[in-house]
């Protein structure tokens, strides 16, 4: 166990923070924020893997010999993942807005209670 693993530990701390927010916070917008933090930690993990000690950004320097470049592949994968991430986050937020318009709340327990009340009302109505 050396200082070389420090980045992984921090990634794990952030990832677990995101997971906790998704699991424990009842508010839907908060959950989406938790997913965002989780996603960012995954992106940090990939970028950490791509770093080469003493390397530089993977843009070819003309005429220079023996330059160490960091690995470009994780960069490619993650920069598209960020844009895909915002598009899917927007989809999640759109769902949250629809849920709010339907139930008047974003707290998951209140939504569940409202659904149960709706179902019971429907059942009582059907029994008449």
């Amino acid at each position, binding site marked *: 166990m050396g200082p070389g693993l420090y980045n992984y530990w921090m990634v794990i701390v952030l990832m677990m923070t995101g997971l906790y927010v998704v699991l424990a916070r009842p508010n839907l917008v908060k959950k989406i924020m938790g997913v965002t933090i989780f996603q960012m930690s995954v992106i940090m993990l990939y970028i950490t893997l791509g770093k080469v000690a003493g390397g530089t950004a993977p843009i070819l320097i003309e005429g220079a010999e023996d330059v160490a470049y960091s690995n470009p*592949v*994780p960069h490619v994968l993650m920069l*598209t993942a960020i*844009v895909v991430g915002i598009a899917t986050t927007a989809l999640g*937020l759109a769902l949250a*807005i*629809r849920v*709010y318009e339907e139930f008047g*709340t974003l707290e998951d327990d209140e939504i569940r209670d409202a659904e149960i009340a709706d179902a019971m009302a429907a059942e009582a109505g059907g029994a008449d």
Partner: protein
Amino acid sequence: MDVLLFAFLVATAVWGVSRLRDLFAATMMLSLFSLLSAGLFMVMDAVDVAFTEASVGAGISTVLLLSTLSLTHRREKRRERRLDPAALVLVFAVGALLLWGSQDMPAYGDPQAPVHTYMVPRFLEQSGEEVGPPNIVTSVLASYRGYDTFGEATVVFTAAVGALLLLTGLRRRGEADSREPGGDEQGVRMRGNVILRVAIRPMIPFILMFALYVQFHGDYGPGGGFQAGVIFAAGVILAALIWGLHRVREVFTPRALELLIAGGILLYGSVGVVAMVRGGNFLDYDTLAHDPVHGQHLGILLVELGVGITVASVMIALFLLFAGRGRRSPSAVESG
């Protein structure tokens, strides 16, 4: 450097996002988190990723979250129990497992790590001659892994179609009238903030110009279609905040946006099909011109343009959708 950045990142994530009950403050913290991440990516040589994260995370995502809050609730409900013990146990258990697993990971910056083998030496050594652009990220993104990027662009397209479907139409019957008309004028436009308005107005043309620079200079420096699209959308969003949504809608009508969103993807796919018609494989740009390297240049330019058009129009459409949505009638909102 890393230690300091990570300390701030953990602080904004743990305290800001998971503890704060005020969602507005949490959004600001998340925006800060994104900006710090961009700094971290910069330190780790991922300039293109840092660029994307700064424009997406600190820019567009904050705007969308704020629009969502203006349509829903600003505060989380007060709870008696602030920590969930079951979730904490699970999180610590998973975290411990991951820590255990991280023992076998290669050390940070190790040039011998398995990720740097297989195709990567070829990308680093050959891409200059095979593909051309000095920015290896662009070569890999648009040429070597062109299929992958096509897939990613399609996911952006699909997610946008989903959001558009959710927030246009699909309204319960008789509900349409309960929305306050012209909500965008009261809610979005920065009427009072004279200083902000005066300061931002001259910046807008430069932001749009910068987006075009990022788009077409992405072969040589950091940048490309994804970043350019987001920056262009940010410029348009600023314009909407100053002059009102209706002015932007005059230029970017829903119909035009739909056409642009699909058109970008279509351009990307068409380049692949043309390459096939000319005797190559799908998205094999070598056949596009008399000379393979010229073909690569042309292919990358068109493909990145397609990505830029789709991403920009998706972001603009999402913003107009979120910000332009009238609130529900006050009585319905009270119940929350």
